[in-house]
């Protein structure tokens, strides 16, 4: 017995449109379900992406090298010499695309009215530019000009809290390695805004050289920050660096530096999958019902085919083809609709109306849904895979019809 696939397809197609209203309703349901799967995962992906990016922004640097004790005690004591020798070689070749070194210590900033505990970054502006770790936007003034710049750049919210302003002087204060107070006055040369307003409170940018001299560090730095390609795969940057550092140094990817942030991507993938399956389960009831009705209506011709000698497998296949056809149509409509409605939103949706609440979740005021081919593939796989599984029941019932009884229903 050969498989008359073309005829089965034609048969399934025509059967589908026999009750076109029911088919259209089911088609719509599948399309909406598929659209919801993709839209939902695009929003979820956009949200996580942003949370991770915002998180990376406050780190900043996808892979970082520290003195071994720095993470336990991020003070000047746990500094390290700037990269040289093997490490310098490793930093200057692929897969690493850029790196910089900086001083990063807890400090106090004071204006004439108030003082705040912050994290003082002593940076090389050129290096920070290269790894894309500059503040999001400079709203007033400028960023530091070079590693010798004596000014400071503060976050807008910190400026408000300190009641200071552009061009005014503030005092930076911390400890040197001998536990003596180290301080200097600096002029506010720039004010930045960050996607997360909490960042504006925390990070204070000063140039590396003045910061090193203030802290009596010589040329020592607190951390080396590295980037290379896709932030999702930063772990691959670690091994070559780990091989080049001394045993007093530690190389960590952002996933290790912030395990909570690191697990976010996996959690998101898991959620996406669960959501998709749940949406499909809701759909599957409609699908099974549609097929059961279709089989019930066509009992006589199914009985006829069996009486003529078509094996149950062929009947089963016929129902499955019909189901796959219906699912495929729904998938096409759903995917196209998702593409058309979500793609334009990728440039960002203003959610500032609800953004205060979102701040807690480390989100900005704009949501960027991320349409991902993988999500479209996953939803297609789920719909087709589980769809066939759900269709097996009605198909099985059709295949098991007793031809004599089915034909006797005149």
């Amino acid at each position, binding site marked *: 017995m050969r498989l008359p696939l073309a005829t089965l397809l034609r048969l399934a197609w025509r059967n589908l449109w026999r009750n076109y209203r029911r088919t259209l309703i089911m088609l719509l349901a599948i399309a909406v379900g598929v659209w919801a799967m993709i839209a939902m995962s695009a929003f979820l992906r956009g949200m996580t992406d942003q949370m991770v990016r915002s998180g990376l922004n406050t780190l900043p640097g996808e892979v970082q090298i520290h003195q071994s004790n720095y993470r336990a005690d991020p003070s000047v004591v746990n500094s390290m010499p700037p990269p040289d020798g093997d490490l310098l070689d490793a930093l200057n070749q692929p897969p690493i695309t850029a790196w910089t070194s900086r001083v990063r210590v807890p400090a106090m900033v004071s204006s004439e009215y108030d003082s705040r505990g912050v994290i003082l970054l002593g940076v090389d502006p050129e290096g920070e530019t290269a790894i894309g770790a500059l503040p999001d936007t400079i709203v007033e003034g400028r960023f530091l000009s070079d590693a010798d710049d004596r000014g400071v750049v503060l976050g807008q919210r910190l400026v408000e809290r300190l009641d200071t302003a552009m061009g005014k002087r503030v005092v930076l204060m911390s400890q040197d390695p001998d536990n003596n107070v180290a301080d200097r006055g600096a002029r506010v040369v720039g004010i930045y805004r960050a996607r997360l307003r909490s960042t504006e409170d925390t990070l204070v940018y000063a140039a590396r050289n003045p910061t090193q001299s203030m802290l009596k560090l010589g040329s020592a730095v607190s951390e080396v920050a590295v980037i290379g390609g896709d932030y999702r795969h930063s772990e691959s940057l670690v091994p070559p660096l780990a091989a080049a550092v001394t045993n007093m140094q530690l190389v960590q990817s952002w996933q290790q530096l912030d395990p909570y942030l690191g697990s976010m991507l996996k959690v998101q993938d898991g959620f996406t999958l669960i959501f998709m399956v749940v949406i499909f389960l809701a759909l599957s009831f409609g699908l099974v019902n549609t097929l059961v009705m279709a089989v019930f209506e066509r009992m*006589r011709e199914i009985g006829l085919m069996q009486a003529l*000698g078509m094996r149950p497998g062929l009947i089963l296949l016929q129902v499955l083809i019909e189901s796959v056809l219906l699912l495929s149509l729904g998938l096409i409509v759903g995917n196209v609709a998702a593409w058309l409605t979500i793609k334009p939103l990728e440039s960002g949706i203003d959610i500032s109306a609800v953004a205060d609440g979102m701040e807690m979740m480390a989100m900005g005021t704009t949501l960027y849904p991320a349409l991902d081919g993988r999500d479209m593939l996953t939803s297609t796989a789920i719909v087709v895979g589980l769809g066939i599984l759900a269709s097996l029941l009605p198909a099985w019932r059709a295949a098991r019809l007793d031809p004599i009884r089915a034909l006797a229903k005149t």
Partner: protein
Amino acid sequence: MSSIRCNDLCKTFEQGGETIVGLDHVSLSIEEGEFVCLSGPSGSGKTTLLNAMGGLDTPDSGRIQVGDAVLTDLSRGQLADMRLQNVGFVFQAYNLVPVLSARENVEFVMQVQGVDARQRSQRVQEVLAEVGLEGLESRLPAELSGGQQQRVAVARAIASKPKLVLADEPTANLDTRSAAQLMGLFVSLNQRGITFVIATHDSRVMGYARRLVKLQDGRMISDEAQEPTAMVV
């Protein structure tokens, strides 16, 4: 090849706690090329016997042999294959798949039978012409009259050149003229060697038969050869 041997067939049905006799020790032999009518009142067991001969149904006891195949020894799947390849069926109604055209209805079965594409389209034209349906090949069943639908069913039944055609009340839904045309078609096909067994209680049909088997309450009450009385139109 297409002789039919039925030995001592019994079949009962259970319905609502009652036992209904379908076949009661029926023994019957039909030789190749015969034109047999199974007649009898409603409920006498005509369909049950016909279904058993066609491998659609299995008796509770007894033995059926069609050609070399002992149907009572075959599995369900084997019976399906036997029906597909060796028996042409014409039923009372709902003989066709409603969404397939006349041509497609015939072709579908031939495809499943494994006839290759070139041979198939040629044969489909041939049999549809033979039953007098040229020009109506692409009509859907709903666009054909009852008689035309039955003739599509006959075309399908003879497409793979089976030696045996079983028909169950083929004229029940037809007017006199269409019934006569259909029977004329049966007679001419029978003259080319196809064995026909027709279950009917239509006296118009019995007139075409060369042998009349009468059933009552599942028992064979008579089996007589006769000269056909009906005129082939």
